[in-house]
């Protein structure tokens, strides 16, 4: 009996001390580690609104969550070797995670090395062939293409001829959008005459579009699959004054794209939420590092913008980046 009381008291004492530990060390254990992240986009800031907005989203999330984010960007999207080189350099720096938007689907030879060093690889916007991807934060590119295709099908003559200006060969983003576009077109998919690749430059897109117009005089629709290809195509139409017979549909917004829409050259643009993508890329990476990922694929969303809804406050908020001191 005496012993029983004593053991009971001992148990209570032990429990109490455990409680003390939890109370005093608990909050200390929760303190956030300072992660080091490196983001390698396809192209540096300022080249187009999409990447500018995406990178600013990533930076803002990093600031908000108190992590270090270094952006190592190639000068142009077609500088595939430069991106490769940057990835190698990033691996050498041994960050906690590398976020990358691969320009081509071919996997980096340094991927395995990065994994061996315990560096988490997160794909943002685009993916490379990877046997075991950990996290992908991107627009659902099939959905982007599908929305574009469905709208096109709704406004296009059933006999109308369609051409696609894509950004890059062997790019996961481009391939998925093209596939989605054809799905969205439905029966009209048979009318797709040709797919050309502009290597993500406005000039080449414009040049190729003009060639397409010569090749197919009765062309009715040109679809651009990213900012460079769609704006490039729209410029060609504007230059030729062909907006009345050829409609342009495209992907990704920019100030120029919006002005081209106001002018009636773009019939629709599917807008990716690039800021959100960058922001979520960082946030989800932090979650992954904390060991509580939300899933393999995180969709940052997209919206169909037409001349009719482009002044909606909701769409405005998506299209135009907010800058405080501008």
């Amino acid at each position: 009996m005496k012993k029983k009381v004593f053991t009971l008291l001992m148990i209570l004492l032990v429990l109490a001390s455990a409680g003390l530990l939890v109370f005093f060390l608990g909050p200390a254990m929760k303190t956030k580690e300072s992660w080091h992240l490196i983001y390698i986009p396809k192209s540096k800031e300022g080249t187009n609104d999409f990447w500018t907005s995406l990178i600013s989203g990533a930076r803002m999330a990093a600031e908000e969550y108190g992590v270090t984010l270094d952006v190592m960007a190639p000068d142009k999207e077609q500088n595939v070797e430069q991106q490769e080189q940057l990835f190698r350099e990033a691996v050498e720096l041994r960050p906690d995670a590398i976020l990358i938007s691969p320009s081509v689907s071919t996997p980096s030879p340094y991927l395995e090395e990065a994994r061996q060093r315990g560096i988490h690889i997160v794909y943002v916007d685009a993916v490379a062939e990877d046997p075991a991807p950990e996290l992908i934060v991107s627009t659902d590119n099939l959905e982007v293409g599908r929305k574009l295709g469905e709208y096109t099908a709704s406004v296009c003559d059933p006999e109308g001829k369609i051409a696609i200006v894509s950004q890059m060969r062997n790019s996961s983003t481009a391939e998925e959008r093209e596939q989605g576009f054809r799905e969205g077109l439905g029966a009209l998919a048979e009318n797709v005459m040709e797919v050309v690749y502009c290597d993500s430059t406005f000039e080449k897109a414009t040049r190729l579009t003009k060639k397409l117009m010569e090749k197919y005089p009765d062309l009715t629709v040109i679809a651009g699959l990213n900012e460079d290809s769609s704006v490039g195509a729209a410029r060609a139409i504007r230059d030729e004054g062909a907006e009345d017979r050829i409609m342009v549909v495209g992907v990704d917004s920019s100030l120029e794209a919006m002005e081209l829409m106001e002018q009636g050259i773009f019939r629709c643009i599917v807008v990716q939420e690039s800021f959100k993508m960058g922001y979520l890329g960082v946030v989800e990476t932090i979650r992954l590092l904390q060991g509580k990922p939300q899933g393999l694929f995180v969709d940052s969303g997209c919206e169909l913008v037409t001349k009719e809804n482009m002044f909606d406050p909701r769409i405005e908020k998506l299209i135009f980046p907010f800058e405080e001191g501008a």
Partner: protein
Amino acid sequence: MRRNKSLNRFFGRFNSIRTEIFGATAGLLVLAALALAAVSIYSMDTTAFETSEEFSGKIIRQVNQSIDSYISYMDNITSMIANSTDAQAVLFGSSADNGFRVRLGEQFQTILKSRSDIRNIGIIREDGNYLINVAVKRVNPYLDLDTQSWYTEALERNGGFVLTSSHVQALLRGERPWVITLSRGMRNYTGGGGIDGVAFIDLNYSVISELCEQNSIGKRGYVFVIDEEGEIVYHPQQQQLFSELRTENIEAIMSADEDAIVVGEGDTQKLYTIARSSLTGWTVVGSTDVSVLLQNSRRSQRFFLVITIVLVVLALLVSGILAGSITRPLQRLQESMARVQEGDFAAAELPAVSGTEIGSLTESFTVMTNRIQELMEQNQREQEEKRKSELRALQSQINPHFLYNTLDSIIWMAEGKKHEEVVLMTSSLARLLRQSITNEDELVTVESELSYAWSYLTIQQMRYKDKLSFSVEADPEVLPMRIIRLILQPLIENAIYHGIKYKESPGQILVRAYKEEDQLILLIRDDGVGMDEEVLKHIFDRHKVNYQSNGVGVYNVQQRIRLYYGQEYGIRYESRPGEGTTARITLPADREEVLQ
């Protein structure tokens, strides 16, 4: 009864008193500690809340005032422009004189240079006359002014200013900035004084953001502004809000009657402090994380909780010790009582507990037990004495009749001049007398007892002449054994008077002593007439005292043996009429007093 006892033992006999004391003290102490902790913890939160509400309330009202005066100031500028002759001339004048344009453009440039918070400043009229920022700035030809609220509302509102929420200004080519537009209708003084144009200022967020951010309301606290419709005017994380990456509970703010409300739950709980402006129609909201707000009080609460836990543990310990110290002597006393009850008086010796009531109780118990033990020992001694005296009484003197008869026989023998017989008989009688008189020891050796029997038999043989013959035999090992006195003689006497005496022919008596296993056996066998069952049945009867015997009957012998050695020992008779009788005395052969 026994079952209850064992049950009690199992559950702890002093369980109830001990747990009662423990429960009462521990309960009281724990309750007090918990109540204290609860009150202080609760009041801490409330205090933290009230302090924070008051503090952020002040700041928010201050921000609100600053924004009001900022907007008034800006309105003054638009008002000045709207009424300036240069602006009138540019917008409504028909003269081709470019001087007004240039002068107004310069004025705009001066303002823009001195105020970095103004993005655009300008005047515009729907028919196409306009001047924005500089003389040559081109407007967006695709924009329909009628779709722009800052333009249409300024025309409609007679004289007052119009303030937009955050919106994208699409007026200029190649620019789509997020701004807040402050506009004011312009009267056409040359053409009748009707409102026919708009002067406006596009404000970027630098001043408002500065006002909001410099008035920080604590760690992770921030200030934001919403308009009458609940649209965001300014928020430090406007882009995140636009991208729906974060939300504010606008609905709760719009419907709030108080100056401070708490929204959300758990970790995301926020305290909104609200100030509304009648000038702008905007609402300035201060947001504070409740978790941050309560961080300090949480820390103190944690400390309090720890103290409480320590107090509770201490209370339990102290109560346990207290209950133990009170009940332990009681428990010991109870255990010792139980053992005393079972006859173990040594258990009554308890360690002295000084002072307390239980101490005196223990002492009394010890004294009482000692007294009982003394009394019991005394009683035992007295019983022993009584038994001894009883024995003494039973082994009484030689029957006087026997003595007279013997003396008569001696006299007759002496008269017949039978000297040798006289000598033998007298010496036998003398030995008999000496042995019966020496009364000091209760016990005698078997040898001595046999010799006594021999003396007695010798006398009787002489009295009965040839009618009696006898023999006394013994194993040598039994001779030194000690037994109680005078057990053989009464049985021999019985054998003579009831066996041999009535026999026609001469009788024989055999006395034999031997050891059988751990028993000492004394046999008295006669070949007399024997006894029928009726006689045998009454042989141990008390009243059966023969006047001719020496007065110590078979009953007495049996009684004495049983008194001294126990019920399992004694005399057993075997007899058959006409064949003789055997009396068999069984005594212990292995007892200490026997072997001595």
